[in-house]
C-alpha cells in the first residue's frame, strides 16, 4: 500500500489541557453517567450514537463520517499506572513515554533518530507551533518548529522582499563551509546551513499546493492545512506534530468542549479529505491524545482533572472500531473519583511504531507493550 516513494507518515495532535473523555465518547445509557454529570450531561437525544451504548459528542459529526467509513479507531480507558493530575507532569509522561522517572528525550525524537540516524534530512520531523514539545526532543536530532508555514524561515520580520532575500542570501554565505573556523563555529555554521536548507525546502510547499478543500480559519485547521501542504510536497517529512489547546474545561464545559470538538473534527475530516483528493490518503495516520481525562463527577459547570482518557487513531490505513473497554463507572471501580485506566498509552505508541512506521517499538519505548491489531496490512 505504501510505495517506496511515499513512506508512511505520522501526524500527532496533542489536545492540551486534559480532554474530558466522558463527554467525548459518552456512555449515554449509563445511569451513573447521568447522576454524576448533573450539570453537563449529554443525552440520547443529542449524542451521535456509535453502538447503542456509546455516542460521540454532538459536535463531532465530521468524526462520525470517518467512523462510518471504518477509518476511526477509538481507544478507551487510556492512561498509565499511578496517574498524575498535574498538566505538566502528565504531559511530560506522555511525551517521554516514561512514567516512573523524569526522562530527557521524547518518544518522537527517538523515532526521528531511528528514521534518519545520520540526520540527513533536517525536516524528517516538524512541529507546527512555536517551541519544541518534549515529545520531539532528542539529542542530535534536528526538528523544525514552524509557527506559520507562509512566513516560516529566517528573518521573516524584514518587510521589504528584496532586502529579505538579500539578508537570507547573506545568511547562507555566513554559515557556509569554512575550514579556518574553530570547532565551535563550524558546528554552529553547519547547523545554520541545515536550518537555511530546511527553510528553503519548506518555503516551496505552499506554492506547489492547490486543493478544493477550504479549511476553517481557526489555528488547528490552519496547522493541519500546513501539514497537508508539507506532506503533499514530498520533502521527506515523516513525523508531524501539532497542538490544539483549551481542553482544561473547569467551567462552561458544555459550550467550550463542543466548540473545541467542532473545530477539531472539522479540521481532521478536511485534512483526510485533502489527502484523499491528492491520492495520498493511504500514506498518513493521525493520532490524537490528551494528557489525562477528567473527573467523573462534574463541578457544577465543568470538570476537574482526572485520569483515564480516550485516544483516537485515524486514517485510511486504520481499522476503525472501539479498542479496549470503557472503564466501569461503578463507584467501587473508580479511582479516587476517576475512570481507571485499562490501556497503557504506550500500547498505542507501540502499535503505531510497529505496524505503521515499521520501527521496532522496543528501541523507542525501552519495553514491550501490548499492541492493538489496528493497522491494515
Amino acid at each position, binding site marked *: 500500500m505504501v510505495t517506496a516513494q511515499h513512506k508512511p507518515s505520522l501526524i500527532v495532535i496533542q489536545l492540551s489541557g486534559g480532554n474530558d473523555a466522558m463527554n467525548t465518547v459518552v456512555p449515554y445509557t449509563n445511569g451513573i453517567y447521568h447522576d454524576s454529570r448533573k450539570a453537563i450531561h449529554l443525552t440520547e437525544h443529542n449524542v451521535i450514537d456509535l453502538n447503542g451504548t456509546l455516542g460521540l459528542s454532538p459536535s463531532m459529526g465530521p468524526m462520525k463520517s470517518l467512523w462510518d467509513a471504518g477509518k476511526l479507531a477509538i481507544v478507551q480507558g487510556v492512561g498509565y499506572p499511578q496517574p498524575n493530575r498535574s498538566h505538566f507532569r502528565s504531559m511530560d509522561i506522555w511525551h517521554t513515554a516514561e512514567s516512573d522517572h523524569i526522562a530527557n528525550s521524547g518518544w518522537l525524537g527517538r523515532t526521528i533518530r531511528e528514521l534518519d540516524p545520520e540526520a540527513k534530512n533536517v525536516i524528517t520531523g516538524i512541529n507546527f507551533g512555536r*517551541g519544541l514539545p*518534549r515529545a520531539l526532543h532528542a539529542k542530535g536530532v534536528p526538528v523544525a518548529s514552524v509557527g506559520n508555514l507562509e512566513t516560516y524561515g529566517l528573518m521573516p*520580520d524584514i518587510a521589504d522582499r528584496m532586502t529579505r532575500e538579500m*539578508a537570507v542570501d*547573506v*545568511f547562507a554565505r555566513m554559515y557556509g563551509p*569554512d575550514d579556518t573556523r574553530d570547532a565551535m563555529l563550524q558546528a554552529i555554521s553547519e547547523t545554520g546551513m*541545515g536550518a537555511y536548507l530546511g527553510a528553503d525546502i519548506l518555503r516551496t510547499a505552499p506554492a506547489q499546493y492547490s486543493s478544493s478543500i477550504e479549511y476553517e480559519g481557526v489555528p488547528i485547521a490552519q496547522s493541519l492545512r500546513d501539514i497537508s501542504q508539507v506532506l503533499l510536497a514530498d520533502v521527506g517529512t515523516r513525523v508531524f506534530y501539532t497542538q490544539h489547546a483549551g481542553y482544561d474545561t*473547569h467551567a462552561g464545559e458544555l459550550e467550550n468542549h463542543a466548540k473545541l470538538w467542532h473545530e477539531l473534527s472539522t479540521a481532521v475530516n478536511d485534512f483526510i479529505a485533502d489527502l484523499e483528493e491528492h491520492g495520498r490518503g493511504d500514506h498518513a495516520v493521525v493520532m490524537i491524545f490528551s494528557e489525562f481525562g477528567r473527573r467523573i463527577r462534574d463541578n457544577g459547570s465543568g470538570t476537574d482533572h482526572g485520569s483515564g482518557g480516550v485516544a483516537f487513531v485515524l486514517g485510511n490505513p486504520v481499522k476503525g472500531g472501539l479498542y479496549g473497554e470503557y472503564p466501569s463507572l461503578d463507584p467501587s471501580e473508580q479511582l479516587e473519583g476517576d475512570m481507571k485506566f485499562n490501556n497503557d498509552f504506550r500500547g498505542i505508541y507501540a502499535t503505531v511504531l510497529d505496524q505503521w512506521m515499521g520501527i521496532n517499538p522496543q528501541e523507542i519505548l525501552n519495553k514491550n507493550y501490548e499492541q492493538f491489531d489496528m493497522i491494515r496490512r
Partner: protein
Amino acid sequence: MASKEIKLMAHLMRRAGFGASRGRLDELVEQGYDETVESMLSAIDRPTRITDNLIRRYHPEYSGMMGNQSPSGNWMYRMVSTDAPLREKVGLMWHGMFATGYSKLANGKVLHDQIRMFERHGMGSFKNLLMELSRDPAMIVWLDNSENHNGSVNENYGRELLELFSMGVGNYTEHDVKEAARAFTGWTIGNTEYMTLKSARDSVWPYGRLSFHFEYKEHDHDNGEKEFLGHKGNLNGEDIVDIICKQPATAAFLSRHMYSFFVADEPPVPEWPYKEPRDPEAIAALSKVYFDSDYNVEEMLRFLFKSEFFKSEQARYQRVKSPAELVAGVLRLTGEFDRPKVDMNPTNLQSTYMGQWLLNPPSVEGWHWGTEWIDSGALVERVNFASERLGNIESPGVQTLIDRILSDSNGGLNAEELVERALDELSVGDISDKTRSALVEFAEVQVNQSDSGNAGPEQVANVLKLVGATPEFQRA
C-alpha cells in the same frame, strides 16, 4: 577598532554579566579592570524592592506567584533590568547544576523561592548553599526526599547530591549513596497533605501566596549508626554536607562547573569521567582557592576573573550563549524593558522556543550546554529574535546604537567602516573573514541604496540586524 582594554572588558561583561553597551565599556575601562571585578562581585540589586511591588500590583502574571510562566518571566525581568548581573549569572549556574523543574512540581511559587535563595546564598559558602538546598522545598519534592523515611529509604536526593550537586560520579560507592539517603530521612515538607489536596482540587490558580515549607521530623529520622566516605557515627544531613565539602572531588567538580560556566565550555557533565578538563591547571588553582577560602564561592569568582586563564585570548568567545543569556543580553541592549511592561512573559517565552524553558529543565541533569544548545529549530529562533530586536529602530537602545555609529561618521561611513562599527557596538569580535566579507557586501548595497549615498538610520539598523544573525553572535 576597539582597544585591547575594551576587548578585555567586553569579555568580562559578557561572562560576569549579560554584555554591556560600548558606551558603558568605555566608562568601565576608565574605572579599571580589577575595580570592575570588585564592583561586579559586591553589587546588590537596590531597586528590586520597588520593581517587585510594581510587578506584583500591575503585572501579577510575572510576580513569581502563579503558574509556570510567572517565576521564569519574573527572573527574566530581573536579568534584563538588574544592576547586579553577576548575581543572576551565578543563579543561572546554580539553576543549571541543581536543576529543578516545574514539570514535576506544578508550583511556580516554590521555584521562584528557590531562585531567590540562590540570589541570597549563591555567592557565599558552598557548604551553606548545599545546606540551604537540602532544606529547599522545591528540591525536596523534586527529588522525593519527602518520600525518604526512617526504615523506608528513598535514595533519589542522596544520590543526586553526590552525583550531580557535589562530587561527580566515580568518587563514592553505592553504599555511600544509601548512607547519605539515610542521613537525610526526616528532611521533609511540613504541609504536604494540604498542598496535595490543593493541587488535586485545582489546577490553574491553586497556590495563591502559599507554598510548600521545610520541616525536619525527628521521629522520621534514622538515628542509627552510618558510615559515609569513611566517617562513622549517627550522621545527620549536616554531617553529610560537611564531609562532602571536605572532598577534593567536590572542589574539582565545582571548579569545573565554574570554569565551564564562566571561562570556556566544557563537555556536558555525563562526559566528565571520560574527558580531561580543557585546562587542568585552572581547575587545580580554583580548587585550591575553594579550600583556602573555606569553600567561598565569591573568592573563587574573584580569583577566576582576575586569572590569566580567564583574561587570556584563548578564552574569548569560547562559550555558546545559553538561550536565557542571549535573550537577556539582547534586551539589555535594546532597552525595551527599562521598567516592568506587559509583554515580559511572551518575550521570555523566546528563551523557551530556543530550548531553555527557565525553571523547567529537561531533567535533574539540567540542560546540555555548548553547541548542544544549537539545533536547527533553535538556531532559527535565536537568529530571528536577535535580528528582529537589534534592527528595531523604535527601541530606545537601538536608537542609541545608531546615533553612536552615525555620530562617528564625519560625513559618511563606507561599508567596511559601518560593519566594523556595528560589530564593535555589539561586542562581536574575532569574526571570520567569511562572515565579514558577507556583511560588508550587504552593507555596500545598503549604503548605495540610501538616497544620500551615506548610511542613514535604516541602513545602520539593517546592518545591526545582520550582525545579530551571524554565527559569531551565538557565542559569548
